[in-house]
């Protein structure tokens, strides 16, 4: 009986070993998984993506909002892979904080826009500085005034497909063109826009270089106008940068000495919020549609210059354009009147004044000597 049972016992022992081994493995896996889930409870961004995509990778997944708008709930894995967030481990729950599991809590948004305007608030969790700047922008003020279509973070940067905004640089301007199509059409044929779009030029300004990035201000104010020459000067007064394109970097300094520049400087220093008509760069060169001065269509091409002057000086005759020397150094060939006036006041006039002063000093000296002599006698 005992002998008969022996092989069974051996059998039991073997099973016991295998069983206990499996048990240990199972326990280990259990503990390990327990620990992992505890980590995901403490940190918002973890592997929620795979879980969510369990449903949201379905291209047909959609829902209907109370106002009848149909929203696709499909999230493409390719799109997530190309975005900046997902590969960095910032996943669904980082932004969709209220959704923890399935079934999701009831959605209270009436419209798609309302939903976007609610979810974009999550951006400030990480991007607080940019978010705050955006709140002090023309766009935020438009929203406050009731225009809910005014752009929020996700309108420019995307939502699930956020990429680096200026790769390539032309992406910035094409983003703005989504709403500002008309201005973009002017810009893309300008000297700046053309170089950006056709050559991916690293120096020409994109929209945000002049208008700012997140705290974009109203460019129609007196203050923007009065400081706009400084904006142009941030590139056009840069010797190194201008030399690259065969342009002179004196334009800004010489403008400041011209009638327009001097007149404007008074207002700039004292009353920057008072609208003043003295010409700034853009009045003559154009704003978004700036062309090379050699371009026959340029507003400051010699053939078109008079018409440009006549915008402000309607009665000006053909000689009038000769009065503009604001961008050129004084030169005997180009500006003879100015040149010889300058020579007169830099040589003859000071000479006469110095001679007069020396003569008067001699008179004073002679009078003092005379007095001392008389007092000694």
């Amino acid at each position, binding site marked *: 009986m005992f002998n008969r049972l022996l092989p069974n016992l051996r059998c039991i022992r073997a099973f016991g070993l295998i069983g206990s081994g499996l048990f240990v493995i199972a326990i280990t896996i259990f503990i390990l998984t327990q620990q992992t889930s505890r980590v995901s409870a403490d940190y918002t961004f973890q592997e929620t993506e795979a879980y969510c995509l369990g449903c949201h990778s379905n291209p047909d997944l959609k829902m209907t909002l109370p106002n009848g708008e149909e929203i696709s709930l499909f999230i493409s894995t390719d799109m997530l892979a190309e975005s900046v967030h997902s590969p960095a481990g910032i996943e669904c729950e980082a932004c969709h904080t209220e959704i923890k599991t399935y079934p999701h809590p009831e959605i209270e948004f009436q419209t798609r826009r309302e939903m976007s305007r609610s979810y974009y608030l999550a951006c400030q969790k990480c991007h607080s500085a940019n978010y705050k700047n955006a709140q002090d922008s023309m766009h935020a003020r438009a929203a406050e005034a009731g225009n809910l279509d005014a752009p929020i973070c996700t309108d420019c940067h995307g939502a699930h497909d956020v990429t680096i905004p200026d790769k390539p640089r032309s992406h910035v301007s094409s983003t703005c063109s989504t709403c500002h199509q008309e201005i973009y059409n002017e810009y893309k044929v300008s000297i700046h826009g053309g170089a950006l779009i056709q050559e991916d030029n690293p120096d020409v300004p994109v929209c945000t270089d002049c208008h700012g990035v997140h705290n974009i201000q109203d460019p129609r104010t007196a203050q923007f106008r009065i400081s706009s020459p400084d904006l142009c000067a941030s590139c056009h007064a840069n010797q190194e940068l201008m030399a690259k394109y065969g342009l002179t970097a004196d334009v800004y300094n010489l403008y400041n000495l*011209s*009638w327009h520049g001097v007149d404007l*400087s*008074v*207002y700039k*220093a*004292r*009353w920057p919020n*008072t609208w*003043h008509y003295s010409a700034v760069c853009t009045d003559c060169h154009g704003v978004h549609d700036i062309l090379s001065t050699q371009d026959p269509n340029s507003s400051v091409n010699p053939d078109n210059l008079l018409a440009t002057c006549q915008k402000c*000086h309607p*009665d*000006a*005759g053909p*000689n*009038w*354009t*000769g*009065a*503009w*020397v604001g961008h050129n150094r004084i030169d005997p060939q180009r*500006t*003879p*009147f*100015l040149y*010889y*006036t*300058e020579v*007169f*006041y830099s040589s003859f*006039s000071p000479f*006469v*004044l110095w001679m*007069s*002063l020396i*003569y*008067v000093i*001699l*008179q*004073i*000296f*002679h*009078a003092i*000597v005379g007095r001392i002599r008389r007092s000694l006698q």
Partner: protein
Amino acid sequence: MTVQKDSLTSKPETVYVERYFPRFTLGQRWEHGILILSVFILLITGLPQKYPDTLWGQWIISSPERLNQIQQIHHVFALLLFALAVYHFGRIFVQIIRKQLPGGMLPEWQDVRDAWQMIKFLLFLTRNKPNFGKYNFEQKFTYWMIFFGVGIMILSGLILWFPIQVTKIFPGGVIPAAFLAHSNEAIALAVFIVIWHFFHVHLQRLNLSIFTGRINEDDLRKYHENEFERLRALNSQDSNTGGGNP
């Protein structure tokens, strides 16, 4: 030509007779007064526009409206100065036609010789001070500097005031040249008046003859000896023909 200020008293040895000689006509005195007024107002309304960054400039140009007012005042007094210049030229023109131009202000070679002599005197190279006529070379220099200075200011000012009309006839280049000239000449003229004219009429000696219109005998003798001699000769001629006092 002489004026007796005090009436003779009974004791001849204590009589003090201060004799005055007429130097400027009433018209000339008025001209000078208007010149002072207009140049002063033009400077205080013009300089803040040239130096808007300075504290005093900002004090005068306190608001855009004030800037506008100041430009209008500048134009009004520019017209006054212009009218004065027209009057001055008109008078000279009439005097030339009538062959009555006094000519005392016209520059002569004698002025260059006087200036050279004066410089040698001031450098202690000679003890002889030159004798001057009615207007010495310093005074002539003052007149001609202001003559051309005001001329440049009026001309360039008018160009800046009516640039569109000016460029219908003249090349556009005159506009920035006028801007530069107006700005520089104003300073040059102001500096000249302060260092040269103010020194000679206020510091060196207080010479108020342009306001009173007359000069006393001592000053005439001391500073314009040739003129004094000329007048004395003239006077003795007069007395020979039976007029005036000895």
